């Protein structure tokens, strides 16, 4: 079920109503049914894949806790192989078939394998990672194994965040799900503010920019460099608004049920460096990779060369997590290189310079532009298209090129969005609105509602991160 659907607008109040009406001991069952229904709206058969993930990790968690020594490791390995195996089959099979088909003729193998007709279950990368974090934590003895399969199932299935995160940890979400939440004005009002703002960001910003981006990216060779730059910047804003909007609705929906999810974004385009950017962008994934991959490779305690390799590997892996395409790996690697350069430069720069206002502004601008350029590899359909876009971005003055036309609607929506983002700097929209006078609050609600009614995109653009 999509957040920006009529279906969800009716679904959420019904679930909330039942949630607060029924006794706490039955709530897990309600959430389980509601979450299963939420997911089944996408494609019912794939719900059983999720159930398989739940069952395997539930059993593995118990067995890891029960056993000692080598056996613990084997059960953790079983969990890792099951999760990564599922992810690998659904997400990467065709990618590796393509590689085989490309390499086969070079080594004189005449066999050609046909691509499989596989639909990637929505959000598989998210819930396998979330589930996996639980078994790893149990293995590390930082988390007790969950005995109640219902609660564990809800940890993996919890509908507000099951398909696109934030990727939660059991010590946070699992425990929150067990608390007897009481109906409170605070939770409802904060939750609704987040839902309203999240929908505004997704539907009025991301969905209005998407047609412009799609038009240029479909045939970049036809456009002036100014239009290419416009599309590149528009995509950077689109993907942020798309994912941030989704995450904000997720936070809001969970908050209405009294559950606090982690913030996945902290205004990443105000970051002063790539290191800072990764502390603000898709925080739940960055911390997942840091805690379970980077630290396992030795973290920062290894020698410099090894550390550089580890950082590059981590970023490439993060890119590959996003999609089965070379472009995603390159996107990750470029971020890795930018991260290393940023780290290197900031180590050598004197503190006096770093504290200058001009330095902060310049760092912010440079970071934004670097991120915009690297996004090209993320958005373009293949490597060739990425290179065409970058080439066109510095190719001036050929008369046959077209200019992209931008209507006033996305621009004015963007203006409102930027004002909000500046206003809520170092805060969050729900807290910021709560701190204002009641008249101002209702004006904000009215403005956001009117924008949604009149200026939301109507092209049904799916959430970009659903495909991951």
């Amino acid at each position, binding site marked *: 079920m999509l957040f920006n659907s009529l279906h969800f607008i009716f679904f959420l109040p019904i679930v909330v109503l039942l949630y607060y009406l029924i006794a706490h001991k039955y709530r897990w069952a309600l959430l389980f049914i509601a979450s299963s229904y939420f997911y089944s709206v996408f494609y019912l058969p794939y719900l059983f894949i999720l159930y398989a993930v739940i069952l395997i990790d539930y059993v593995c968690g118990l067995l890891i806790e029960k056993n000692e020594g080598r056996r613990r490791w084997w059960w953790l390995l079983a969990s890792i192989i099951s999760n990564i195996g599922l992810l690998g089959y659904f997400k990467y099979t065709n990618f590796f078939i393509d590689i085989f088909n490309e390499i086969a003729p070079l080594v004189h193998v005449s066999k050609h394998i046909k691509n499989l007709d596989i*639909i990637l279950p929505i959000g598989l990368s998210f819930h396998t990672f979330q589930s996996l974090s639980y078994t790893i934590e149990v293995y590390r003895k930082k988390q007790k194994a969950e005995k109640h399969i219902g609660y564990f199932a809800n940890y993996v299935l919890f509908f507000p965040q099951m398909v696109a995160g934030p990727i939660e940890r059991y010590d946070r979400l699992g425990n929150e799900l067990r608390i007897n939440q009481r109906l409170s004005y605070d939770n409802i009002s904060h939750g609704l503010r987040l839902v309203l703002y999240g929908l505004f960001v997704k539907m009025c910003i991301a969905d209005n920019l998407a047609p412009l981006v799609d038009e240029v990216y479909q045939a970049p060779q036809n456009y002036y460099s100014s239009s290419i730059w416009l599309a590149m910047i528009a995509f950077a804003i689109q993907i942020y608004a798309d994912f941030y909007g989704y995450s904000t609705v997720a936070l809001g929906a969970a908050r209405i049920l009294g559950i606090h999810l982690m913030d996945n974004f902290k205004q990443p385009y105000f970051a002063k460096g790539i290191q800072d950017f990764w502390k603000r962008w898709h925080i739940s994934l960055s911390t997942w990779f840091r805690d379970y991959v980077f630290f396992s490779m030795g973290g920062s305690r290894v020698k410099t060369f090894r550390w550089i390799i580890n950082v590059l590997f981590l970023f490439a892996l993060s890119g590959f997590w996003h999609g089965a395409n070379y472009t995603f790996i390159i996107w990750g690697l470029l971020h890795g290189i930018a991260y290393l350069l940023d780290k290197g430069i900031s180590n050598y720069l004197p503190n006096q310079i770093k504290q200058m206002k001009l330095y902060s502004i310049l760092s912010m601008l440079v970071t934004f532009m670097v991120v915009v350029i690297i996004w090209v590899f993320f958005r373009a359909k293949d490597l060739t298209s990425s290179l065409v876009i970058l080439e066109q971005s510095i190719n001036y003055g050929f008369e046959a090129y077209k200019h992209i036309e931008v209507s006033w609607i996305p621009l004015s929506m963007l203006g409102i969005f930027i004002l909000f983002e500046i206003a809520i700097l170092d805060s969050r929209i729900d807290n910021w609105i709560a701190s204002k006078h009641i008249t101002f609050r209702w004006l904000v609600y009215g403005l956001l509602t009117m924008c949604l*009614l009149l200026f939301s995109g109507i092209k049904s653009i799916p959430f970009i991160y659903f495909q991951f």
Partner: protein
Amino acid sequence: MGCAFLMLVLCLVLSNFIYEKYYYRQDLKESDAEMLLKLDSLQYSSDVLYFAESSNATLADDDTCLLTIAQMIDSLNPEKVVAIDHGAIHAKTYKSLIENIKEDAKVKTLIVTLNMRSFGANWIHSKMETALMKANVMYEQIPPIAKRVKLAFNGFDNQNDQMRGHVMEDHWRHDYIHLPDTFPYKNVRTWDNAVGGANVLDFTTPDGDWDMPRIELATSYIKTYAFSIDTKNNPRIKDFDEIVEIAKRKKLKLIYNLLAENTEYADSLVGKPLTDVMKENAQMLIKRYTDKGVLVVDNLSVVAGEEFTDKRWTSEHYTQRGRWTIAKNVANAMSVK
């Protein structure tokens, strides 16, 4: 709570006013739903509305007569006949549009194309369906701002292409064919696989190679026509049934124009079993709707194979001679009854 409700109502009323005045027409255009504007004006200036997909206006390259089928019927009929047409639309769209015909409209007769292909999985689950369903929202009889909300909040069938492909495959596996028990294939997929595997029919070139274009064309005919219309579950049956009810309610005379299909090619490529299925479906449709009081014009086999403009795939696109044949049949039927 009261304050929130009041604000929401105020926002809706204000938005509806602004939207209808400034942006509604733009959204009709963006949703490819401008037929509604056409219908709004034509229902007051014509006697007969001809609802059709691309069969109405597609011409052959060497046509000297550039009239559409509706224009041809108009020229053969004393009443003014105009078309409301758009590529790939089907009975669900017709139904929504017909609901928009007002009581005081001049129009008294509706001719609706009864396209047999539109009953098949190919068309029901086509990639065009999302766009069509989106346009359909704009034809609904609700306030303009409500249409916009439905579009923005995905209040229509908007499955992606890959998902539609899966559903289509599933449909083919369960699309049973009512032929004598001696016929070995029980559903579209098994028949298609057998012919596609070139095991059933002799599809070889004089050199002894597989004649791939012919094999592909034959399988495309099977996928398009080899099904017995399930009158209980086929969505098009439901739509055409509802059109009958709407026409009765609005006191409009209804004519179903059963379009010509290339039965000649179907016979030469796949053989009698396929044309038998097509004819059986046609007879079922004619009987079903004649019993409901609709005038059904049977054009199934009236156009010769060479009068179809598309030779490499199935369509209802005719040369001028084909279009005249159909137009004359419809005009004759109109004059008789």
